[in-house]
């Protein structure tokens, strides 16, 4: 088997020679050195060795063939009021990455991109921001287009863990085990996030009833139910009626609304939230013919000319004007009645506020109808309505069963 002098040795001969050279080093029994390797054997061994080598490299680089992975890190302050632009920018990045890196067909196989959500940097988080982020998780969970995974979850702040645990978001991220925060220094009572695509009066009523069943003693109020129900009706009837060019590529999950409620011990108030992922109140109102003449006197002068010219109006001013129309005009359109009933919640209670984050507008209206507004740097990607009413204003006599509808 030894090649003649000058000729190129065959591969099989080389293998044997290598073995022979390594015998002393590896203490291989001498009888193995002389074993002849067939071509078939040789081919099989080379192929196996190649695959072992390749898999070893892949394990070391932590890559999987065809799987894309992107990490998104949330800012330290995750609140709309004090860090609105960075908070919304994170949400927009999540939508953009998930939309662009949706599942695709590669080499004949479906590839599911993975997005690692890193909330470890968050030191301050608000309930509205947590709700909007949870809704975003649910959107992609329902669409099944990407895999969302929590990243460095052990480093998440206890308040972040508590909020997402109470909202029921961990299940959407594929975490079955409930992660308890290490400290419970606050006693926020936050209900799981509800969602639907239809007007569901019973779900809306549960936003009050579930708080009462947790031991909060207050009389249910019909006007709270009315305001919440009108907000949900707005979602279904108007929020998704247009396609916003800027957000056109982001897929929707039907005419979906999300809602929850909580008792906030810091402000001693009951807070109710309704959110949708539509185009925003301003966009839909401007396009409704019967609204433009109503808004004009309030928007005044040059601003109404801009609207007629189709130029972009500050969302916050349009929203403020719409609530003013709803409050002051007796001959209201159906939508005006709904907006008025939404604002009427705090008016009836005599305290608290209603806050509307819609598009780029952030408007807060108190019980006396006074409004504060500002324009955000980016489009929120939907509408979030929040009612905050003083708990003391709703408390009724203990043991009063007159509010029990089933009695």
């Amino acid at each position: 088997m030894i090649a003649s002098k000058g000729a190129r040795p065959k591969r099989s001969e080389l293998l044997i020679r290598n073995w022979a050279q390594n015998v002393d080093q590896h203490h291989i029994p001498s009888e193995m050195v002389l074993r002849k390797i067939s071509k078939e054997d040789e081919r099989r061994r080379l192929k196996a060795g190649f695959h072992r080598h390749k898999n070893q490299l892949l394990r070391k680089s932590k890559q999987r063939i065809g799987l894309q992975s992107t990490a998104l890190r949330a800012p330290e302050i995750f609140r709309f009021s004090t860090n609105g632009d960075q908070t919304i920018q994170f949400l927009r990045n999540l939508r953009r990455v998930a939309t662009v890196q949706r599942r695709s067909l590669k080499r004949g196989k479906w590839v599911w991109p993975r997005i690692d959500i890193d909330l470890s940097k968050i030191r301050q988080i608000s309930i509205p921001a947590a709700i909007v982020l949870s809704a975003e998780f649910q959107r992609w969970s329902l669409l099944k287009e990407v895999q969302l995974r929590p990243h460095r979850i052990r480093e998440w702040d206890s308040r972040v863990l508590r909020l997402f645990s109470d909202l029921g978001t961990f299940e959407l991220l594929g975490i079955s085990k409930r992660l308890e925060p290490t400290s419970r220094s606050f006693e926020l009572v936050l209900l799981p996030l509800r969602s639907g695509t239809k007007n569901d009066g019973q779900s809306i009523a549960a936003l009050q009833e579930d708080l009462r069943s947790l031991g909060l003693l207050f009389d249910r109020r019909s006007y709270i139910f009315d305001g919440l129900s009108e907000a949900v009706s707005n979602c279904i009837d108007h929020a998704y009626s247009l396609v916003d060019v800027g957000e056109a590529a982001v897929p929707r999950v039907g005419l979906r609304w999300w809602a929850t409620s909580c008792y906030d011990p810091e402000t001693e108030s009951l807070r109710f939230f309704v959110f949708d992922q539509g185009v925003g109140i301003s966009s839909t109102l401007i396009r409704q013919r019967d609204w433009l003449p109503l808004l004009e006197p309030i928007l005044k002068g040059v601003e109404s000319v801009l609207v007629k010219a189709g130029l972009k109006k500050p969302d916050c001013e349009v929203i403020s004007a719409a609530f003013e129309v709803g409050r002051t005009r007796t001959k209201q359109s159906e939508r005006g009645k709904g907006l008025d009933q939404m604002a009427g919640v705090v008016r009836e209670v005599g305290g608290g506020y209603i806050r509307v984050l819609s598009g780029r507008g952030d408007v807060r209206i108190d019980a006396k109808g006074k409004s504060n507004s500002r324009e955000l740097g980016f489009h929120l990607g939907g509408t979030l309505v929040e009612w905050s009413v003083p708990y003391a204003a709703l408390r009724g006599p203990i043991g009063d069963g007159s509010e029990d509808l089933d009695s």
Partner: protein
Amino acid sequence: MLPCEDQLVMDQKISIAEDFTKYPSGRYRRNGPGSGEEFREKFLLPALRAGRHVWVAFGGAYGYPASFVEEAFGGLIRSGQQLEHLERNLTLEPGAAEYEVYVAQAWRFMREASRAA
């Protein structure tokens, strides 16, 4: 005041909470259960078209969103009912003080719809 038993034989009493839903919500049927359109078409219109006097009791429900009330009662005018006919043959009973505002709202919506027609 609720009608006496003899009168009820000729009339029809509808309790929204007991006969329809405790959670009225929404305007159109396509938006979900308990809508104003469904209540109007299933309960109000058949009774009114049969020539009966209709008593509608508001008590016991969780609340009445404006879109529900407007579609249920304002929609009667849009469905061809005349305001004068409704004022003679439709009675709305609040049942408790907290529901009086909804009764007033329903009549306001019917008058507005009549003016707009």
